[in-house]
């Protein structure tokens, strides 16, 4: 492979997937998937169930190896543990050891990072301060989700990967997380977010990638994607969902 000059994407990309193919038995989850995320960018990965979003996230995080193509974090191999020091992640399903307290879970995760956030600050930021002494097994769905997202920020990451982070959160908690993500991105952090809430993508994303059957069917700004689907570009400025939602239904064959 040719070394890219410093000012090119090769050096700037926080995360980069190139031509990734991934197959499980007869199912082709990803068919030549490309993705680049730079600092200060929030990329929303959208698509119907089974489109390959979670597979893309696992390849990016080094949890699965691509059958073909390459996956890089900060220019390095994500399957090496050291590469993941600058990354925080929230998997789609959240769960913790039942018998540990929230504070113990946070302290346990902090040990893995060279310069972690202070536990009280982290718990406060995610509205968990009062739950610090509670057993993780006794948390409600929303509290579990908040702890899972807090853990993604524990290591003061430069990239945060959130797989459907706001599922199960009430409106207030969701808006709270949005504020945290906006501040993180404004400070130069990069975010990859998969979501089913189009409102969320419209509110947060600097770029949208639409995935269907393991391939990118559209990418660009929210305006680009709505335009490409043949909708009037003006819709994208409207905060209500219809613009992007309609676009995705058209682009993915109406099975969203």
């Amino acid at each position, binding site marked *: 492979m040719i070394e890219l000059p410093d000012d090119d994407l090769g050096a700037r990309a926080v995360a980069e997937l190139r031509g990734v193919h991934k197959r499980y038995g007869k199912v082709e989850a990803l068919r030549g998937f490309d993705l680049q995320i730079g600092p200060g960018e929030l990329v929303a990965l959208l698509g119907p169930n089974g489109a390959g979003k979670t597979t893309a996230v696992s390849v990016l995080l080094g949890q699965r190896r691509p059958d073909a193509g390459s996956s890089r974090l900060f220019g390095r191999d994500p399957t090496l*543990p050291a590469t993941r020091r600058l*990354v925080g992640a929230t998997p789609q*399903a*959240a*769960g913790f050891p*039942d018998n540990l307290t929230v504070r113990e879970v946070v302290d346990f995760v902090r040990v*893995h*990072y060279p310069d972690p956030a202070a536990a009280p600050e982290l718990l406060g930021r995610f509205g968990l301060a009062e739950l610090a002494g509670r057993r993780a097994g006794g948390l409600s769905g929303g509290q579990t989700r908040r702890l899972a997202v807090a853990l993604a920020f524990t290591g003061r990451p430069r990239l945060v990967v959130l797989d459907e982070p706001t599922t199960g959160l009430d409106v207030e908690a969701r808006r709270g997380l949005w504020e945290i993500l906006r501040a993180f991105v404004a400070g130069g952090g990069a975010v990859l977010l998969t979501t089913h809430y189009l409102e969320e993508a419209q509110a947060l994303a600097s770029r949208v990638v639409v995935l269907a059957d393991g391939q990118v069917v559209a990418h660009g700004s929210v305006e680009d994607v709505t335009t490409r689907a043949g909708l009037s570009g003006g819709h994208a400025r409207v905060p209500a969902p219809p613009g992007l939602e309609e676009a995705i239904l058209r682009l993915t064959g109406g099975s969203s």
Partner: protein
Amino acid sequence: MMVALAHFKEQTLQHLRAPGYLLPTLAMPGLFYFLFEGPDTEVGLVTFLMVSYAMWAILGVAFFQFGVGIAEERATPWERFLRTLPLSAGQRLAGRVLSAGVFAAAAAAIVIVEAHLINPVSVAADRWLPWILALGAGGVVVAVGGIAMGYWASPRAATPVATLAWLLLAYLGGLWATPTELPSWAAEVSPYLPTRLWGEVTWAALQGQATSPRDWLGLLAYAVGFAALALWGYRRDEGASYR
């Protein structure tokens, strides 16, 4: 190192707070030693059985902490989350092994201390180290068996499988009474079981008798077999979840 210690602490706290784990490992061996054997006056017998029940205690840690522990955690969201941390499989394993080692030592110590308190046990000064070493060597073999169980048993089946194996192997291995008291059908199976082989080398070490190479070779064969099963199961699980 810090990371492995954090995993040691996580594993240890979780198990210390789980009554379902503490009952078969720390409570039952001591309780059964009391119910079946003590207080008694037969020095040879109570000493022999102290050693047997210490083995049974370690067998419990091997099957419940490794077997049930690995099987139940394997496919959990928590395990998937751990894969996103800057963490190697070796650090996780080190924490788990260290924690199980501490529990195994505690479980055996409870039986040994109890036996000294209620019975006139007597171990020659120069026999302590040999029998403890034999106890530990067999403990490693059954721990590898526990790891194999963890990768092959489904999360729902793990507890019943571990419980049944733990009870049957103890009884048939001659750990609850002396092997000579086994009914004839059981006595025929017994010499081929890992717990009996473990018993033979440990009892011989205790009494200062020569151990038969057959027993050590048998244990070694089990160790190799369990390790192969564990590795196969681990690869199969990795392939299904993370390839």
